[in-house]
């Protein structure tokens, strides 16, 4: 049975490929008719070939479970997602604007605190934040940039517009899968490239990343020593750490490979100690230095924080940058953009209610069954309440939690995530997606064309996290036809 777009129905949701049953949106027409031109067997063969490619290319991620850590093949649906060039250019500007403003904010928080004195953001919100690091006060990193690599989660609403769901300023992951998904799609649908679509390439991300990281080097040398610091092979994103190190030609180091002497950082090589200039750390703040943060950390390096504060080594992202990716601070980002850049935000936030505010909290508690409630500092979709899908018991539990610790919660209306088709075993079916583009800021800034599309593989589900059974898609930014 061939793909039949007439029976494909996303219901009330905005579908990015099919506008109404049988009709593809303009940029997607060639993709839709190409998929229709293949027999069911051909499509399934391509699906199997893509799965095999992922297995032999060793594209994997690690899942933690009671039975130990399992290295799993990366889940990818072969039908690509399309975004037009003009739409992306605008989105891309919005992302750069946002990161620039967030970096001004972080720098201000750790230095002059003007935004607190001007009472744009309440001071106690910062001081109570689990991501505020008082040890960073007074630090002035190069270019005044703290968050060098940002993964911003976007969703498309019923109106087909992008909204920002959250900013990830600590150790966002997924970019390697964005690059590898493209490599797999090229193997799967070579016919579609160039002939039908002109697709913006994503493969140069590691080169952009290396340029940005090198620009942070405190030493003025032609080739600064850039390393990627990983918690090790058991981390869920180890594949990515190793992938980025390989593609940048940087060393992949673990805490035990580094040593600090005279406030300088060195790595242990077969020829003795060798100085390190820039560390792209994929370890959380709390674990980077047992002398300053978590004393039990075996992942970090004793003395690293001081070496950074003395300006002898660059850390990307800087410790303390997470103060701006708190889900409560998120609600202030439109004001933050206006305050520092004197511009209107190009990208909108999803409307949000702060539980710490009495009136807003009242609204949240009264409408809990219609809202999504998120804790300030969790990631990977943990600790969330999806009101319309929750049981009475769960609602009561969250009512209790919000009252006990209002600072830690915010709520948003359940936004309808857009859908795109996935290839099931028998037919193509709509599934909900989000998008994580990656934004770099150092001496200049850069946005990936597209990003990592995550897709909820279960019908009707909004859960896109790969740790919870979500899949992914190659994302094409195509020239407007």
């Amino acid at each position, binding site marked *: 049975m061939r793909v039949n777009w007439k029976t494909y129905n996303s219901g009330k949701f905005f579908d990015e490929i099919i506008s109404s049953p049988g009709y593809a949106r303009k940029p997607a027409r060639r993709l839709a008719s190409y998929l229709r031109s293949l027999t069911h067997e051909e499509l399934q063969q391509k699906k199997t070939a893509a799965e095999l490619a992922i297995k032999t290319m060793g594209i994997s991620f690690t899942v933690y479970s009671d039975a130990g850590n399992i290295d799993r093949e990366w889940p990818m649906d072969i039908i690509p997602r399309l975004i037009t060039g003009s739409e992306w250019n605008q989105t891309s500007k919005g992302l750069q604007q946002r990161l620039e403003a967030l970096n001004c904010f972080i720098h201000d928080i750790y230095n002059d605190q003007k935004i607190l004195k001007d009472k744009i953001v309440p001071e106690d919100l910062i001081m109570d934040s689990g991501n505020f690091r008082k040890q960073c006060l007074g630090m002035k990193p190069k270019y005044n940039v703290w968050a060098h690599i940002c993964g911003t989660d976007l969703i498309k609403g019923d109106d087909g517009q992008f909204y920002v769901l959250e900013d990830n300023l600590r150790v966002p992951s997924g970019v390697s899968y964005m690059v590898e998904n493209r490599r797999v799609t090229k193997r799967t649908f070579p016919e579609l490239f160039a002939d039908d679509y002109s697709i913006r390439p994503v493969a140069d991300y590691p080169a952009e990343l290396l340029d940005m990281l090198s620009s942070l080097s405190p030493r003025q040398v032609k080739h600064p020593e850039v390393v990627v610091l990983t918690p090790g092979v058991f981390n869920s994103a180890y594949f990515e750490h190793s992938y980025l190190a390989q593609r940048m030609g940087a*060393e992949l180091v673990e805490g035990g490979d580094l040593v600090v002497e005279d406030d300088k950082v060195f790595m242990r090589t077969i020829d003795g100690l060798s100085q390190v200039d820039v560390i792209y750390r994929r370890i959380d703040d709390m674990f980077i230095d047992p002398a300053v943060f978590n004393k039990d950390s075996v992942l970090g390096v004793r003395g690293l924080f001081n070496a950074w504060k003395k300006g002898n080594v660059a850390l990307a992202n800087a410790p303390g940058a997470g103060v701006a990716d708190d889900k409560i601070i998120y609600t202030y980002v439109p004001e933050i953009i206006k305050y520092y850049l004197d511009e209107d935000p190009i990208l909108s936030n999803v409307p949000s209610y702060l539980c710490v505010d009495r009136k807003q909290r009242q609204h949240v508690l009264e409408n809990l069954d219609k809202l999504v409630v998120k804790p300030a500092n969790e990631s990977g979709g943990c600790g969330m309440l999806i009101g319309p899908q929750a049981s009475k018991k769960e609602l009561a539990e969250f009512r209790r939690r919000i009252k006990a610790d209002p600072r830690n919660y915010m709520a948003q209306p359940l936004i309808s995530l857009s859908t795109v088709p996935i290839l099931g075993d028998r037919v193509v079916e709509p599934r909900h997606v989000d998008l994580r583009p990656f934004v770099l800021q150092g001496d200049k800034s850069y946005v990936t064309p597209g990003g990592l599309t995550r897709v909820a593989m279960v019908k009707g589900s909004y859960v896109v996290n790969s740790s919870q059974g979500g899949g992914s898609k190659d994302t094409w930014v195509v020239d407007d036809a």
Partner: protein
Amino acid sequence: MLLSRVAERVYWQARYLERAENVARLLHVFSALQLDLPKGTKLGWQTLVQITGHEEQFVEKYKQENERNVVRFLLAERNGISLVDMLAFARENARTTREIMPTEAFELINGLYYFARDNAEAGISRAERNEILDQIVSRSQQIGGLMAGTMSRDEAYSFVRLGRSLERADMTTRIVDVDSQKLMPELEVEDAEPEAREPYENILWMNVLRSSSAYQMYRQHVRERINGEDVVRFLLQNEQLPRSAAHNLTTMTKVLRNLPNSNKVNWQVNKTRKLVRDADVNRLLRRGLVRHLDSVQKEIAQVHFKIADTWFLPGNS
């Protein structure tokens, strides 16, 4: 500059890969040798377990040292010793050094591991064993070829060569160590006449050569009728043969020139090399070969410890 931890993993990746290939070769040759023996004669499969040095683990688990058990033990069982596990370790080391190895090398190692894992059980029975072992050997060769053809002659490649050469030298001394009397005990009992044993002795030595892909080279270079003395000399002392002990020790001395602080390792390699090259094979065959090979293996183990002391992270090995 190469990280100590990475050097260690690259080295072990090469060793495990080489060891897996050697096990495949040994199983292959034994399976062929069996077919040449007179009807009703059983091959001493336990010799294979002895060569790999894991008699204790084997005895713990199996009562009978028959073909099926030995092949299962060395090929398919997940016991930390089998060929499949060697490849799993090689893959794990390759996976954790992907940042410095060619992408294609990891993909080949990864593919080889999956192939072995999915087919090893089928290789326990004779019907498919040859085909599977052939594949494993030739894919291992392909990995070596890919690395040789794509990797810069830098420190990482030096550690690949060190690991591979050390493992080869070690395995060759173990293969030469096979004792024909243990291998074919029944022939000994049934036929007291030495002449009756002789054709099988020749077949044995021929297969020993084959396990090291050295049969053809022996024919071309030694030109003697196959006999124990020449085969042992060829496999231990010939400098040109790529799987001989001497050749691999010499290779190590060359590789060591590219590495910093290599004095202590170099001294130990040369000591081992001298022990191998200066041995009087004719005399040893009459008496003391086993003891001699034991001491060579001990010296090779010392080479490893010197390598670990010099370059790897302290407390890791």
